[in-house]
C-alpha cells in the first residue's frame, strides 16, 4: 500500500453538534457566506471609476472602416454659460470588479421568489419567467426612443395594441387606458375617468364609497380626486353588505370602489347586483383589480357590470416586482367611460393600422373615428406608459394562451384552499366556515399565547426560510395574516410551507417566548424602527472625525 493520503486532506467531520450560529466571533464580522458589506461611500472615492472612455485607435483589425479620431475639445469653446459645477459632488466610484462584488453581496441579503415561496397576500408573487426578460431586451424594444417618428416604431405600437386587445378580451370590457405607471396610478386614472364622465353630464357628485377592507390606495385615490370617502359596511361573512350599500346609494354617490375577489380572499357573490344598484343610482363601479389573478380566464369583470378596473401587470401578468417597482397599471374601461381615457392612446383602425393618438390629433381622431368631440381628461404621464412591462406581460400572456390563463386562476385558487384547509385547525381562520377562499387564505391571531403577535409569527417564518405573509391587512381581522401562494408553487413546496406554518403557529399558540426574538438566522435581527423614525438618517454623511484626522475625501478614500 502506498502512503495513504500524502496531502493529509480529509473531508470535514463534524465534531460539535451545537448550533452553527454559536461559533466564535470573527474578525470581519462575516459568518462564512453571510457577508457584511459597507456602503459605497465607505469603500469608494471620487477618483475611482469603473468606466473607460478611451478612444481606441484601431479596434477592428479585419480592415473594416475605422472611426475618426475625436476632435479635441479645445477647438470648441465651452457653452455652459459660466455655470460649471465647481464644487465637489462627492459621488463615490468603484472599479468594475468591486462594483459587481458590492451588489452581489448585497443581493444575498434579500429574500426573493427565485429563492422560495413568497406568500405575500394581495401581492401575487409568482414566478417571473426569464423569457420575458429576454424579449424586453430585444433592441427593437429596449433601444427605441418614445418620440421617434411613428413610422419607425410601428412594432412598439403593435405591442401596446396587442396587449390592449388581450386585456379587453380577458376582462370583457370596452376599452383600456395603457399609460398609467402602476396600480395606484391606474386606480387614479379610473376614478378621474369617472369624475370626467360625471362632469360631462353636468352631474357633480361628492361621495365615493369604499369598504373598510380596501387597500389604502382606494381612499387615498378617491380623496385626491376630490371626493369624500365613506365606508361600506361588511357583513359577518366578510363580504359587502348589499342591503346597507343599497340604502346608502343616492344622487350624491359618484362611485363605489370594490375589490373583487376582496381583500379577505373572498369572491363577492353579489357583485352584479351591486353594480346594477350603483348604475340605477347613477353612479359608477370601480373594481380594484389587484386580485385579478384568482379569476383571470374564468370570470370577466365586464360581465359583472364593472365600469373601470386597473390591472397590475406585475401581479397577474408576471412582470418582476424588482424590490418595489416599476409596476404598470393599465385600466380597462366600460363603454360609458372609454371616451374619457387619458392621452396618449393607441387605436387600430379598420385598415389595420395602429395609430398613436396624442394631444395633437386627439380631437380630429375622435371626430373622424368616434363621431364626437374629444373627451379625454388629459395626460397622466410623459410618453406612452410602461413599454418594458408591456413586452413582458404580452410575452407571458402569449406563453399561457387563453387555456393556460384559465389554468393559472384555477391552480392559484387550488393552492390557496389547500393551505387554508391544511392549517385551519392550528390557526384561527375567520371566514373558513363560509366556504372556499379564492387565491389567498386569511388567518387571524386569535388564540396566540402569552404576549405573542402576528409579527412574532411572521419573524418565526423567516427562520424557517420563508418570506412572511402579508401582516395586519385587511384591517377587518385582528392580527390578520393573508397568504397568497400563487399558482407557480408545486405541491411539495406547499407541503413544506404548510409544515413550517403549522409548527410556528403551534409555537405561537403555546406562547413560546422564543418567537419574540426571531429571526435568529437572518442577515439582521429585528431592526429598531422607532429610532429610524424618531431621528431619521436618510442620506449618508461623512462621520465627523476628531480634529486633525484627514477626512475620507482628503485621504482620497481608502
Amino acid at each position: 500500500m502506498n502512503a495513504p493520503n500524502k496531502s493529509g486532506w480529509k473531508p470535514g467531520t463534524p465534531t460539535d453538534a451545537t448550533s452553527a450560529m454559536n461559533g466564535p466571533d470573527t474578525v470581519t464580522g462575516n459568518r462564512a457566506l453571510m457577508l457584511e458589506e459597507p456602503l459605497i461611500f465607505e469603500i469608494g472615492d471620487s477618483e475611482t471609476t469603473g468606466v473607460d472612455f478611451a478612444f481606441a485607435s484601431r479596434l477592428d483589425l479585419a480592415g473594416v472602416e475605422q472611426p475618426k479620431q475625436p476632435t479635441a475639445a479645445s477647438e470648441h469653446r465651452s457653452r455652459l454659460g459660466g455655470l460649471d459645477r465647481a464644487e465637489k459632488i462627492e459621488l463615490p466610484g468603484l472599479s468594475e470588479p468591486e462594483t459587481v462584488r458590492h451588489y452581489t453581496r448585497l443581493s444575498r441579503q434579500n429574500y426573493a421568489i427565485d429563492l422560495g415561496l413568497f406568500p405575500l397576500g394581495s401581492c401575487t408573487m409568482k414566478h417571473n419567467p426569464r423569457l420575458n426578460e429576454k424579449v424586453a431586451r430585444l433592441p427593437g424594444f429596449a433601444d427605441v426612443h418614445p418620440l421617434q417618428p411613428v413610422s419607425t416604431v410601428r412594432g412598439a405600437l403593435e405591442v401596446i395594441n396587442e396587449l390592449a386587445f388581450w386585456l379587453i378580451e380577458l376582462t370583457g370590457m370596452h376599452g383600456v387606458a395603457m399609460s398609467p405607471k402602476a396600480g395606484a396610478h391606474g386606480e387614479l386614472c379610473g376614478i378621474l375617468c369617472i369624475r370626467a364622465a360625471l362632469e360631462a353630464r353636468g352631474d357633480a357628485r361628492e361621495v365615493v364609497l369604499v369598504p373598510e377592507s380596501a387597500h389604502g390606495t382606494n381612499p387615498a385615490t378617491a380623496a385626491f380626486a376630490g371626493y369624500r370617502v365613506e365606508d361600506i359596511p361588511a357583513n359577518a361573512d366578510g363580504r359587502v353588505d348589499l342591503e346597507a350599500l343599497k340604502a346608502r346609494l343616492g344622487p350624491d354617490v359618484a362611485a363605489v370602489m370594490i375589490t373583487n375577489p376582496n381583500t379577505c380572499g373572498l369572491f363577492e357573490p353579489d357583485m352584479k347586483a351591486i353594480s346594477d344598484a350603483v348604475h340605477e343610482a347613477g353612479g359608477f363601479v370601480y373594481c380594484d383589480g389587484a386580485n385579478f389573478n384568482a379569476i383571470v380566464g374564468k370570470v370577466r369583470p365586464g360581465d359583472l357590470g364593472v365600469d373601470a378596473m386597473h390591472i397590475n401587470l406585475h401581479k397577474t401578468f408576471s412582470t418582476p416586482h424588482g424590490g418595489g417597482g416599476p409596476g404598470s397599471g393599465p385600466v380597462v374601461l366600460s363603454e360609458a367611460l372609454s371616451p374619457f381615457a387619458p392621452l396618449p392612446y393607441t387605436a387600430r383602425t379598420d385598415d389595420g393600422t395602429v395609430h398613436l393618438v396624442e394631444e395633437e390629433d386627439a380631437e380630429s381622431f375622435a371626430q373622424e373615428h368616434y363621431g364626437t368631440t374629444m373627451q379625454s381628461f388629459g395626460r397622466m404621464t410623459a410618453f406612452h406608459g410602461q413599454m418594458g412591462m408591456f413586452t413582458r406581460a404580452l410575452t407571458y400572456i402569449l406563453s399561457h394562451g387563453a387555456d393556460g390563463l384559465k389554468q393559472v386562476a384555477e391552480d392559484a385558487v387550488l393552492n390557496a384552499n389547500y393551505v387554508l384547509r391544511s392549517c385551519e385547525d392550528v390557526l384561527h381562520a375567520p371566514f373558513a366556515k363560509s366556504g372556499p377562499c379564492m387565491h389567498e387564505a386569511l388567518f387571524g391571531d386569535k388564540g396566540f399565547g402569552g404576549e405573542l403577535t402576528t409579527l412574532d409569527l411572521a419573524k418565526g417564518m423567516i427562520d424557517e426560510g420563508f418570506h412572511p405573509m402579508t401582516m395586519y391587512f385587511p384591517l377587518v381581522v385582528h392580527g390578520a395574516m393573508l397568504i397568497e401562494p400563487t399558482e407557480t408553487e408545486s405541491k411539495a413546496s406547499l407541503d413544506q410551507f404548510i409544515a413550517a406554518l403549522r409548527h410556528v403557529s403551534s409555537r405561537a399558540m403555546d406562547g413560546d417566548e422564543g418567537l419574540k426574538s426571531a429571526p435568529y438566522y437572518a442577515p439582521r435581527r429585528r431592526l429598531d424602527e422607532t429610532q429610524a423614525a424618531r431621528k431619521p438618517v436618510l442620506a449618508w454623511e461623512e462621520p465627523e472625525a476628531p480634529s486633525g484626522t484627514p477626512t475620507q475625501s482628503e485621504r482620497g478614500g481608502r
Partner: protein
Amino acid sequence: MARYFTEEHEWIDVEGDSATVGITDYAQEQLGDIVFVELPDIGAQVAKGKDAAVVESVKAASDVYSPITGEVTEANDALEDDPELVNSSPEEDGWFFKLTIADKSELEGLMDEAAYKSFCDSL
C-alpha cells in the same frame, strides 16, 4: 385647576380662561412608541371635536381632537426634538398645546378622572 377627559383620550387642564391639552397615558400605551407629533400653529383656531394635532407611532398616525373651541396660544416645542416625552410623561411634560377657552359651557359633558378611568376599564 381642573382636569377633564374626552372619550377620544385627550385630557384638558383648565386654569382660568386658558387650558392645556394632551393625550392620556392610556392613549400613549395603545399607540406604542411615539415618533412624531405635529402641533397646531400659534394663533390657529381649533374647534371642539375637530383635528388639532397629529401623533404618529411607527405604524400609525392618529388625529388629536381639541376638547373645546378656542385659539391656540402655545405649542409644546419640546415634542419636536423629543417626541418620546409623550410616552414617558403623557399627562405632564408631554402636553401638546395651550389654548384660550371660547365657551366654558363646552367643558360640561367631559369626564372627570374617575369617570374616564371607568370608561377605559370598559374598553
